[in-house]
């Protein structure tokens, strides 16, 4: 049965949940918009790979806030790095400009003004340099490593000056 309701679009996430979203929201997803435009007849259901239902929940939250002019209230603080990465990949797949900008900025904010030790600890990055290698590459742009950046809580890897 073709969907005759022209205001709602059906999107099926990877975990099998079907979301009925407003056409205006679907329009912000350029990938979905392209699928709609390419289809000759009214499309029944659009599958969106790599997007899970919890992603769609957040996308709908963001949409509601931005329609009300409150997009600045949207926050991804409660997501850990892995979750943020997956959400970012989903939004990238759907090609949603504004939300992509918000999420990439969120990642940049998590990296901003933190010391190297903090970033390693927080993002789970292992230091695979030898002490000599490490000292050598730091020396190449030495000025960037001075200053009061935020340090990690435990002083396990005290490599800063």
């Amino acid at each position, binding site marked *: 049965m073709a969907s005759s309701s022209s205001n709602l679009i059906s999107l099926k996430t990877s975990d099998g949940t079907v979301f009925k979203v407003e056409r205006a929201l679907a329009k912000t997803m350029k990938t979905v918009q392209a699928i709609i435009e390419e289809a000759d007849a009214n499309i029944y259901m659009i599958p969106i790979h790599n997007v899970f239902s919890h992603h769609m929940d957040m996308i709908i939250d963001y949409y509601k806030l931005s329609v009300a002019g409150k997009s600045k209230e949207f926050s991804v603080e409660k997501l850990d*790095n892995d979750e943020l990465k997956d959400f970012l990949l989903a939004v990238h797949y759907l090609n949603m400009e504004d939300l992509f900008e918000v999420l*990439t900025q969120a990642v940049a904010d998590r990296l901003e003004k933190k010391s*190297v030790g903090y970033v390693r600890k927080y*993002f789970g990055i*292992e230091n695979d340099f030898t002490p000599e290698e490490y000292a050598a590459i730091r020396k190449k742009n030495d000025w*960037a490593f001075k200053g009061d950046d935020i340090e990690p809580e435990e002083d396990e890897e005290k490599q800063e000056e």
Partner: protein
Amino acid sequence: MDDHISELPDDILSYILTMLSIKDLLKTSVLSKRWRKLWGLRKHLYFDIYNVLGTEKELLEKGYLTEVTVDIVYSRTYRCVNLDLGPKEFIKRVDQFLNNFPGTAIDSFFVNFYFDCEQSNTIDRWICFAIARGVERINLLFRWWPYTANSTTQNKLYKLDFGLFTNTITNVSTLKHLRLEKCLVCHPTNCDLTPFKHLRSLSLKFVKVDEIFIESLLSNCQLLRELSLVHCEFNSSTPKIVSSSLYHLKVSGCCKVSSNNFTRFIRLMLVDCFRLTSLECCGNDLSALNTNTRVLKRINFSIYFDEIENYLNAFALCATFPELEIMRLKIYTITMDLLQVATSLKIAQPLEHLKQLDCIIYLPFDTINEECDLMMIFNILQASPLLQKLSIMIAEPKFFEKQKDIRDVEIFSHDEIKVIEFGGCVGNWFEIEFVMNILKYAHKLEQIVVSPYFREDDSSNWMFDPLWFQSGRERMIEKLQGEEVVGREKLMFI
């Protein structure tokens, strides 16, 4: 815990890395072996005093900036850059960055720092670096702004070397956007302008330039869409702008300095650009302007009220553009009597398609002896029958000593205008007069917002006179919320 962030695809990482400051970007380069090359994904390189030398607080602490008291009477201090420390350290750090940067392709390269001919070699080297990596946008902004410099010697400007812009490896010219401030641009004698043939936009500010270069550039750059010449110094006073591709043109505050050091402002004589949709220039020259465009949609000009002809000629010219929709007008009023003459003269030809008018008015300086009124706005409205949106801002508002009674315009009516923004208010009688009349005679008006905020142009900060919040706002509300005021429900006071 695993390193999730570096699992993101390159194009996303590149985007995120572009949002980091230079310092944070460099820190990512030492996180691990995988991260060592990732910073090369960044496509946008931007170097300015904050990014490279530190926040304003750090600049003061380390001596890159010093506070200098200029005026003991008014305790005015300026922040001066330290010319001994600053440039050297800036260059050292940027050189370090560029020498280690692993990226092979960049989109934009911006330098915003005070440089002059002394650092020519360095700048040339940096341009080569960018061109070799296929750069599309270059900004070289060599002013001291927002700070000043305690320098007694005025060094010569950095002279742009056109030979650097040829990519010797690929021979492909990738440059699309060039923006220069405080440089010297001379027409090249030993090379042509083919490296610029893909240029889409050119912006020159505080640049010494010769017209031969402009004319040559316009004929070489068949794709040039935007040209902006602000506060530039020319060799002649009547440059010709001829282009079959230009859409936007801005010529503002340009001048010619003659041999005896006499400064004369540029008169735009010929603008032969049949695709031009947007023009910004000085209104005093509009009478002599010979334009060849039928598709102009936007015009932006300033009128200095030293001659009333300027005002009328400007509107007469605007009436010749059959598709003109948006007009932005800055009016510098010198004396009151000229303003009153303007009110009495009607604008002959209507502006048939004008939909939006933004007006910034600078009031007379003398607020004790001078008077003011805004009645000439009604003349402009009368001449714009299809106007939908009007914005008036009084720049640098002042409260006038002599408050007069409010008059009724009487013979006025407008059937289209829907939205009005009225900024820069302090509660003067003429502000109230304007609002009362517009409420009465603009029949389709939906809303008028009255606020104290104004700004000189889109890139300046909003300002306001605190008098509004002390007494002005109340004064206006009192006069405008009475029952006899027609349409008062459409009023919104900030």
